[in-house]
């Protein structure tokens, strides 16, 4: 792989961006767990009994993994967690897009502005594209960590 893509300079910036996005997203949800539970429920993918537990824990996973990546601890683990989360988000959004069921992403918590169904469906496509872009960042971090480990041996 092109070593520029895994250079320490680029990796440090990618880590910062990923960590910042997930910490901001997580804090937004932590401030309003019932609101996030509502968003999860609206996806209609989980049994009702599991909605609250996910709404309580998921934002904290985002924050803790984000902080780990930010300070450079367990970077590969944090990046893998983000990778799994992003894939799950893309699948959840895609399923509802295929269903033609407009949902609010719920990605960053916070107050919701009323939207039309058409706006929601458009936002879902943007969210999928954004998550796929972030998966590239995750891949960059994993590749950089792998390269660093190889060089240390």
């Amino acid at each position: 792989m092109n070593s520029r893509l895994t250079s320490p300079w680029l990796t440090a910036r990618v880590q910062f961006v990923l960590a910042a996005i997930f910490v901001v997203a997580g804090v937004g949800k932590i401030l309003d767990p019932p609101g996030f539970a509502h968003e999860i429920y609206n996806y209609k993918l989980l049994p009702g009994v599991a909605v609250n537990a996910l709404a309580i824990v998921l934002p904290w996973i985002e924050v803790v993994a984000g902080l780990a990546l930010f300070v450079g601890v367990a970077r590969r683990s944090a990046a893998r967690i983000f990778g799994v989360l992003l894939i799950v988000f893309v699948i959840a959004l895609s399923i509802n897009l295929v269903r033609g069921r407009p949902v609010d992403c719920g990605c960053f918590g916070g107050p919701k502005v009323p939207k039309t169904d058409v706006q929601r469906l458009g936002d879902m496509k943007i969210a999928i594209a954004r998550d796929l872009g972030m998966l590239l960042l995750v891949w960059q971090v994993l590749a950089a960590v792998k390269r660093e480990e190889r060089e240390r041996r």
Partner: protein
Amino acid sequence: MRRDSSWRDAVGIVVVAVVAAAVSNALAGPERKLHWIGSYTSAPAVPAAASPTPSPGASAAAVTPAADAGNAFAPHPNKAWVEISGDDVAALHARGNVLFLDARRSSVYRAGHIEGARSISIWEADADDKVKALFAEGRDQSAPIVVYCSGGDCEDSHHLGEKLYFVGFDNVLVYKDGFPDWEKRGLAVKKGDAP
């Protein structure tokens, strides 16, 4: 062979997150707290035919409290709730003795709600306690109760209707178009914590 410790680290991150989440949830106030096990039912779905409404005499314009005090909104013990129109809701509100419940978040309730409506947000941890307290008031369980949320695809009022049904209220009426419709009609709105 060298063992990959990253999965162990990932488990560590998740464990720290679960502990932090548990502490955060335990310390949260009633508007932010969640029960770990959700009590939401699957997607509410009642056939359109279930709607008891538009009895011609039930429109706001034509009905006086005395005129519709009969069984235009009779109990429906075999259904958790039925949906009613804005005209019917306005007529019931005009009676003055019908309980209205707002299923939206309490912060939204404070920003504006149907005058006289009480707040029971189904997404907040005290919802079940409020429903039980309502039951403990010894109300007539066959009397109409109007529940509403934000209209459109909002299902909060249906969930609240099911909670009420499960404790024994058998005349729950869901205001299908919800608060936006009420506002559009220019009917009485109140702000703040008080009904």
